[in-house]
């Protein structure tokens, strides 16, 4: 089921296909010529590793696929293989990411570039399968770069971009590409599948730095028991991550030349004349854009800013997009219990010192555990923000979005649970 595209007369460079998010990232790993794939199954990531294992078993990918005994082991093997010089791809989700958590920091500290797709799924307890971003954002401080995809096309493209940025000598950090479980992983969309030859041109062979070799013994991952040394290495990682901003921009330029899709660290949607801006990330941003369209029809000057690159945090681009706006509504699809959303304080900090900073930055929590966000909820959040602005007041806590019909549903389920 594929057709040659004649878009821009560049038919040789791509093939149009209908792919799920899982299939798309598997294709990206294949096109990137990933040569080592340690894996461990978890819903909703399984389709990715099933596809890759089949391709390896059929000889369609020259790679080693190994099913590990846990995500902790998976990440350990992924990291040491990357440090040895193999291009590594892996994928996990939710409980799996947390099970391997110790190794996220280790791999980043080893400066072992690899790409890990996280298929977002809310964390237990209570256990569920639907997405939010507490899993991927738990890895926020680890040193992994983070790319957050809205569409299946982005999922594929971000894996390629992630390799290019992660392996750059100015960066040398691992990367997570986040795709939302179900909403992206199992949703088919039309995708431009790049040609292998173009990908090869975009993504040169991975050249490891100080790999493990017989001729040149190395000691890796060893303790630094002198505090200034520890600080030094952590600062190095931080600066490398900051370097990744420009490395990403360079890579995105090349990417556009070769694949005709352009990516900035953030996406601006109807922002130019907007008074109120909704900030979002990942697949639910598509719903946010629909809400923006609807509110525009109602005459409200609303826009949306979507964060694609979450680590390194694109402070400058966010400032450019949000300065001078009246209200910013940060929709966090995650919750830091006892505080609020994880992204909102980061946005607020980026804007704080500007003369023309927005009057109101409203923290909103929505979409936890895959809860849908309706137009009415977006409308409500925007109204609250605009009202606060007119009152010259600030929010007294995050706005927890929940609809009346949902409250009724929960009520009825609580009744059943209590035997009533």
């Amino acid at each position, binding site marked *: 089921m594929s057709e040659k595209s004649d878009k821009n007369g560049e038919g040789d460079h791509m093939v149009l296909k209908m792919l799920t998010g899982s299939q798309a990232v598997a294709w990206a790993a294949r096109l990137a010529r990933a*040569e*080592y794939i*340690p894996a461990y199954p978890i819903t909703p990531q399984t389709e990715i590793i099933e596809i890759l294992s089949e391709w390896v078993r059929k000889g369609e990918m*020259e*790679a*080693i696929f*190994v099913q*590990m*005994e*846990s995500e*902790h*082991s*998976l990440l*350990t*093997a*992924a*990291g*040491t*293989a*990357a*440090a*040895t*010089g*193999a291009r*590594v791809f892996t994928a996990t989700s939710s409980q799996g990411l947390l099970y391997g958590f*110790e*190794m996220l920091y*280790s791999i980043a500290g080893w400066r072992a570039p690899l790409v890990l797709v996280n298929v977002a799924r809310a964390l237990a307890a209570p256990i569920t399968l639907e997405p939010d971003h507490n899993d991927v954002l738990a890895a926020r401080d680890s040193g992994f770069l983070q790319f957050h995809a809205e569409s299946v096309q982005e999922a594929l493209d971000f894996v390629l971009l992630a390799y290019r940025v992660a392996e750059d000598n100015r960066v040398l950090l691992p990367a997570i590409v986040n795709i939302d479980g179900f909403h992206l992983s199992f949703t088919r969309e039309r995708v431009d599948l790049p040609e292998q030859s173009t990908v090869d041109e975009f993504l040169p*062979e991975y050249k490891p730095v100080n790999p*493990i*070799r*017989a*001729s040149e*013994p*190395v*000691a*890796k*991952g*060893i*303790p*630094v*028991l*002198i505090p200034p*040394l520890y600080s030094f290495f952590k600062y190095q990682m931080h600066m490398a991550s900051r370097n990744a901003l420009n490395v990403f921009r360079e890579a995105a330029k090349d990417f556009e030349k070769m694949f005709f899709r352009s990516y900035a660290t953030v996406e601006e949607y109807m922002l130019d004349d907007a008074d109120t801006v909704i900030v979002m990330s990942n697949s639910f941003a598509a719903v946010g854009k629909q809400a923006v369209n609807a509110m525009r029809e109602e005459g409200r000057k609303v826009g949306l800013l979507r964060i694609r690159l979450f680590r390194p945090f694109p402070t400058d681009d966010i400032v450019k997009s949000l300065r001078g706006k009246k209200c910013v509504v940060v929709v966090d699809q995650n919750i830091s219990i006892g505080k609020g959303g994880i992204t909102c304080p980061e946005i607020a900090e980026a804007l704080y010192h500007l003369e023309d900073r927005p009057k109101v930055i409203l923290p909103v929590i929505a979409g936890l555990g895959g809860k849908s966000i309706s137009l009415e909820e977006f409308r409500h959040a925007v109204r609250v923000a605009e009202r606060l602005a007119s009152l010259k007041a600030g929010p007294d806590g995050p706005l927890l979005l929940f609809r009346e019909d949902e409250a009724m549903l929960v009520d009825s389920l609580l009744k059943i649970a209590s035997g009533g």
Partner: protein
Amino acid sequence: MSITKYRTLKDVPKEEFLVAGTPLCAGCGALLVIRLFHKALGGNVVWVNAAGCVTLMATFPYTPLRSSWFYTAMPSAPAGAQGIRDALDILIKKGKLDPAENLKVVVITGDGAASDIGLQSASGAIHRGLDFFYLCVDNEAYGNTGFQASSLSPIGSGTATTKPTHLYPAGNVLPKKDLFEIWRSHRPPYVATISPSHVVDMLRKVEKALSFKGPKLFLALCPCPTGWGIEPSESVQLARLAVETGIWPLKEAVYGEVTHTHIPSKRRPVEDYLKVQRRFAHLFKPIKNEAVIAEIQKQVDEYWSKVER
């Protein structure tokens, strides 16, 4: 017995891969085992380490090793070995790496990492038939964190978390896991116990293991002056006592078939081994705990009665 180049102590290779200058304790049995083990392994080695005392061998910017070293994490050194082995294999297969750059991949962990937190990872690697060595340096407790009990701590031993009290006069009441048998149940090509007191036996076993592809697993008794309460000069002597009392059987299993490589002709009483260590002092003072000592002796006798039959 196959042909071996190791007949007497004179045959111990002169080449040193582990040189002086580590922060480990004087008389550390683990250090001695690593040094000797490496001589038999030869060069072109990468050690993959889990947290434990030997992690401190290499601290930035120094390493006492002439070979490579990769500290991973406490629970997953075998998985780290998997990644390195697989990466070397695929790079060589694809022609990206000169086969001369190939390395022997050797996991080195303590008993706590091997028998508790890292057992899952070891089991996975052995099950997959990973081509690697595993050297467990067994000092019978969590040494690096101050000698707390692990599941390889022997019954009757006092550790930082199994201190003898009037409620628990025996100290540790749990039996030592049989890691040799746990490993052997996976049917790897080679499993062996070794001791720094029986050097030729150790070198021969490494020599033999080198001929197998797949998991090659070594469990080394490593006297720990600090945790056991012995003099640094007594480490080798204690290791020898463990063998001579029958507490530490020297054996190997090739594809699961067990052979004892040294059967003590006349076993010394376990008391000889126990009474010289501070960690067992409570079994002798203020009153002798005959019951526990007899139980330890009984377990040893039962073990050997099956071997000798």
